[in-house]
């Protein structure tokens, strides 16, 4: 008898504790996906926590992972830097929307003695990843870099082992400039790589390149800068050598912007534009009333998105991401306003 009472009291206390702990953590949002914007997102969310007290947990697991998580409805939002194609909408249980957040650049980074500044063309990069150029002192690389003394070292291409929007944009560019790439490998979040080593996430590719002499990899500009790794200048479609920079990334996004925001920026025809620039998106369900979601959660989410395309933009340039241009912000505002809860707009 006594034991029973004790047991019940214990159970009650445990339940109270759990309840209290949950209440403490009501103000949270969970997102997962693209690693390409992760340095910008984690910075934004850190600031957002400081100003609003709301903790936004963003797990950088790769764009494909983010898309799968939103498809399974196990996160509040997914991050992706490849947009969902019309033919793939059927895979989602309900209508989804894309909110553009920042613009970044996929840079080609490498690990060579002394890390000289290199110039590479899209064709040469494609042939390196096709396994056709295997030495750093290959004639075709030397021709582009007459001033650099290139070592007689094997080239170790490093690619993303996880499904990735960075890979999507990189292979979209290579497909645009190399017909052989287009027919042999193609353009997707993960492709069948003819050569090289896989590493998970932008951070993983940067990590492997940093630790492997002779390697070459593609990562978002912020990852290369933050860890003092070089980035090759690339010849764009106007024949200009461009380094990835705020100016050259913004230049590639200066064109028209579609209302649903789904647009690829690679191989821009802007004269000073960096050729592997990319937009990245947050993906959410248009109708927020699903599973056990509350109106409060939906409001938190919509407010966060609104903050990201306005105040949040102030934090991205320090990390070498370009702010959204005015037309993109306009489109994003309309998309966020179209998010509903039980048919009613969440943001009024």
């Amino acid at each position, binding site marked *: 008898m006594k034991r029973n009472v004790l047991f019940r009291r214990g159970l009650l206390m445990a339940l109270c504790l759990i309840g209290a702990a949950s209440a403490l953590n009501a103000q949270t949002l969970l997102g997962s996906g693209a690693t390409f914007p992760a340095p910008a997102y984690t910075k934004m969310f850190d600031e957002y926590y400081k100003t609003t007290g709301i903790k936004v947990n963003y797990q950088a697991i790769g764009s494909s992972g983010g898309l799968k998580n939103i498809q399974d409805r196990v996160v509040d939002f997914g991050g992706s830097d490849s947009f969902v194609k019309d033919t793939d909408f059927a895979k989602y249980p309900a209508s989804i929307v894309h909110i553009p957040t920042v613009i970044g650049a996929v840079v080609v980074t490498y690990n060579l003695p002394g890390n000289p500044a290199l110039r590479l063309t899209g064709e040469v990069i494609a042939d390196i990843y096709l396994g056709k150029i295997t030495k750093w002192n290959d004639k075709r690389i030397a021709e582009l870099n007459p001033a650099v003394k290139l070592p007689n070292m094997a080239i*170790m291409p490093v690619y993303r082992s996880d499904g990735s929007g960075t890979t999507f944009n990189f292979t979209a560019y290579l497909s645009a400039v190399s017909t052989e790439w287009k027919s042999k490998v193609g353009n997707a979040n993960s492709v069948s790589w003819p050569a090289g080593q896989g590493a998970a996430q932008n951070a993983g590719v940067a990590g492997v390149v940093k630790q492997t002499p002779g390697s070459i990899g593609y990562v978002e500009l912020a990852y290369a800068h933050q860890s003092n790794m070089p980035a090759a200048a690339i010849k764009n479609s106007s024949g200009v050598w461009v380094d990835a920079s705020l100016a050259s990334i913004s230049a590639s996004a200066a064109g028209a912007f579609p209302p649903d925001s789904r647009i690829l920026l690679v191989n821009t025809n802007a004269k000073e534009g960096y050729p592997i620039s990319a937009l990245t998106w947050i993906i959410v369900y248009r109708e927020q009333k699903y599973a056990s979601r509350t109106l409060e959660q939906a409001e938190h989410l919509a407010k966060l998105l609104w903050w990201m395309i306005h105040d949040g933009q102030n934090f991205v340039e320090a990390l070498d991401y370009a702010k959204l241009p005015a037309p993109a912000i306009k489109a994003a505002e309309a998309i966020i306003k179209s998010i509903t809860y039980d048919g009613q707009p969440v943001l009024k």
Partner: protein
Amino acid sequence: MNDRRFNALLGLAALLIVFVFAGFVLTLVVQSLPAVKQEGAAFLYGSEWNPVTARFGALPFIIGTLLTSSIALIIAIPLSLSAGIVMGEYVRSGWLRSLLNTLINVLASIPSVVFGLWGIEVVIPLVRNLAVLIGAPPYGAGILSASLVLAIMIIPYMSSMTREALMNVPAGLREGAFALGLTKQEVVTGIALPFARQSIFAGILLSLGRALGETMAVTMLIGNATRIPDSLFSLGNTLASVIASQFNEAASDVHRSAMMGLALMLLLITMIAGWFGRTLMRKGASAYGK
């Protein structure tokens, strides 16, 4: 509460545990059906794994799993048997013995992810230098690095099981042999080892089971390539490492189902190794009873 209710409670818990286990197998079987339907038997022997074209052949990972585990065993067996013989035959008491025991126990309790960390910072650079020396692709990561660290990880199990097996050899047998004037070496190789061989072999099998299912360290060191490895220095993937690196992003239904299929294969392979190991262990133990 009374005896009947108490027993019912126990039965309920027992039933639940059996259900959990059965549920594991059932979940994996049911969820891997779409991939098995699409690929048929080629799911087992197909050499192409390509989520883009939706081809799912598990052969590269089956080979990667068996290859890394066998290399690890080849490296670990002589080291562990020696360590086991030293602990079981040469230093059977005293401070040296407790030092050895403690070290082995410490190694056994280091988490897998810490071995992965150590492998990335220590083993990969070593293997890369070796590869440069002999002109192999200098990734550093790959089959060899993963196997080396796997070997180190299973040494503690194998050597402590060897030690136990030798300690269980009846003292009378050993004393009799010494009384006949046999040398230590003759007693060990002629009497103790043959007597304990079943238990030692069981220990090797149980270690193999661990190596087959080991995930984190291998994922961090093997280079995550979905090709069939063709040399010690090539990159690869094991069943466990491909699940760890691809499960979270398998967006199409077939891809996800194929991951479940890989998990099922892994479960079956480790279950078979474990079952053999335990059966031998029992046989070995009953041999002492005679």
